[in-house]
């Protein structure tokens, strides 16, 4: 259930500002323009937090708070008082009223979000459906590095995706960016002057808006001290320089649980087809391996009984292929799935060099594979 926020303020302006501040979050915001209305809405909606103004007509915030605290059903609702008066006397008075926190006007939206975020869990809208996001969905990636060349390298590393890279060379600019936008992933240089990368990470984690956003550190492979420190403080991961585009994309995909299976698994003519790319790097092999069981099980569950592993694009048959091929064939056996392998003459020849794959039998095309699968007399590969 979404958290509920009740704003009680006679100023429509403040109610609008509160509503706008929490728009990016998966919350319901309720409004009341005085204490009497506030009590009625609180009784009806049982909000998770109340943002209460002090100076209001009909019933002011102090009286409203006293009534909330004397009502057994409402007394446990945390209240943040909003006041235009920051004087010592007023602050002491508020503290004695039993409020969770108070905020002095004027206030920045970010401060309001942070204070509310201390009391209730704020999830960005859509956070719960991230699993459904695909690799080819547009993503926003914030890169914070004082070296513009690195930002450019990352832009070109993801140029084959619809992702947008927002480069910032100063930490202040990155904070400003996040106050206006919610990036899907953040990359921060661990070697910014004065430990600024680590300080920035703490700020991201302290902010309700970015606390769940994956944050990766970036440094050279030999900077083991920085890598260890990043691991200890809780960075999502570390990307080493020089950047490997596949590794970078793979790490971002995993952190966001992006669905990349459509790149490798398709259903065609009642057959599940696993198409291996031209180059099977360890990262890609691992990615496919993780998707293999759920995708095959899903196909079987939907009534499919045949599978083709298409290695026709592969340029090299190496240990990554051997492991993946064995897993696929074993899985087909476990789930009683008929299967066929498609391979170029080069792949077929290389497979004969491995003990584990020397007996694999290949066909040259999908049509041949389907024909063999439909032949009741044919023997599986």
């Amino acid at each position, binding site marked *: 259930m979404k958290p509920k926020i009740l704003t009680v303020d006679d100023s429509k*302006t403040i109610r609008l500002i509160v509503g706008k501040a929490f728009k990016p979050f998966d919350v319901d915001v309720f409004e009341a323009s005085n204490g009497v209305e506030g009590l009625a809405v609180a009784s009806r909606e049982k909000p998770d937090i109340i943002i209460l103004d002090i100076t209001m007509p009909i019933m002011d915030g102090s009286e409203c708070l006293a009534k909330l605290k004397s009502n057994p059903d409402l007394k446990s609702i945390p209240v943040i008082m909003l006041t235009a008066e920051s004087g010592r006397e007023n602050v002491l008075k508020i503290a004695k009223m039993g409020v969770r926190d108070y905020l002095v006007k004027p*206030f920045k939206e970010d401060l309001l979000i942070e204070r509310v975020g201390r009391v209730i869990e704020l999830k960005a809208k859509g956070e719960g459906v991230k699993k459904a996001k695909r690799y080819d969905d547009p993503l926003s990636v914030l890169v914070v590095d004082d070296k513009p060349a690195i930002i450019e390298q990352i832009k070109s590393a993801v140029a084959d995706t619809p992702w947008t890279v927002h480069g910032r060379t100063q930490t202040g600019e990155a904070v400003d960016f996040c106050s206006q936008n919610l990036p899907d992933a953040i990359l921060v240089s661990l070697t910014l002057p004065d430990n600024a990368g680590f300080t920035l990470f703490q700020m991201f984690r302290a902010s309700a808006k970015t606390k769940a956003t994956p944050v990766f550190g970036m440094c050279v492979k030999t900077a083991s001290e920085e890598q260890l420190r990043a691991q200890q403080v809780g960075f999502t991961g570390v990307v080493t320089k020089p950047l490997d585009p596949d590794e970078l994309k793979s790490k971002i995909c995993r952190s966001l649980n992006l669905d990349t299976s459509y790149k490798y698994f398709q259903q065609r003519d009642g057959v599940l087809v696993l198409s291996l790319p031209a180059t099977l790097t360890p990262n890609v092999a691992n990615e496919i391996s993780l998707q293999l069981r759920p995708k095959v099980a899903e196909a079987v569950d939907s009534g499919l009984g045949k599978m083709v592993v298409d290695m026709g694009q592969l340029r090299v048959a190496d240990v990554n292929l051997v492991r993946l091929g064995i897993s696929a064939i074993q899985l087909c056996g476990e789930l009683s799935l008929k299967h066929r392998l498609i391979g170029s003459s080069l792949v077929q020849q290389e497979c004969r060099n491995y003990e584990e794959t020397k007996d694999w039998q290949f066909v040259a095309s999908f049509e041949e594979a389907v024909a063999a699968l439909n032949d009741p007399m044919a023997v599986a590969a």
Partner: protein
Amino acid sequence: MPITPLMIADIEQLIGSCVTDVFGTMLSMDVHPASPSDPADPPSEAHVASAVGFSGVITGVVYIYTSSSFARRCAGSMLGLTDAEIDGDEMVNDVMGEIANMVVGNLKSGLCDRGLTCVLTIPSIVRGRFSIEPISSSERKVFHFTCESRPLLVEVMIKHSSERAA
């Protein structure tokens, strides 16, 4: 407690700080002190005056004047709305009232911390072409500012102690 020249000077400092803080934080606008002879002053169009009073050991009222077009600009900035999205004068009035409430709320805190305790009134708004004439029993001070090259006037009126005692 008599109104001394020192206290007026203190209010001037407080007003400057409160106006700068409120406009900077809520509207992301820089406010600069200006002299009354600045070319941008006074506004030729109808203006909006938002007022909040304070009453107690010290009693008075603070008015904030802007042109109606600048008030609209303030509303857009504070609410993150475009000019077309601003829904009539009521929304602008509410924003200007809230700005006055924040400025005078902060002023009140400064006064209370100096022992000049008081309570505030709810904001009120007046629109049109007019000027506020002080009564003889009150002391008046006008502070001139510019914001985005537009004039912004803050007028503080304080009743003399004899009046307050009466």
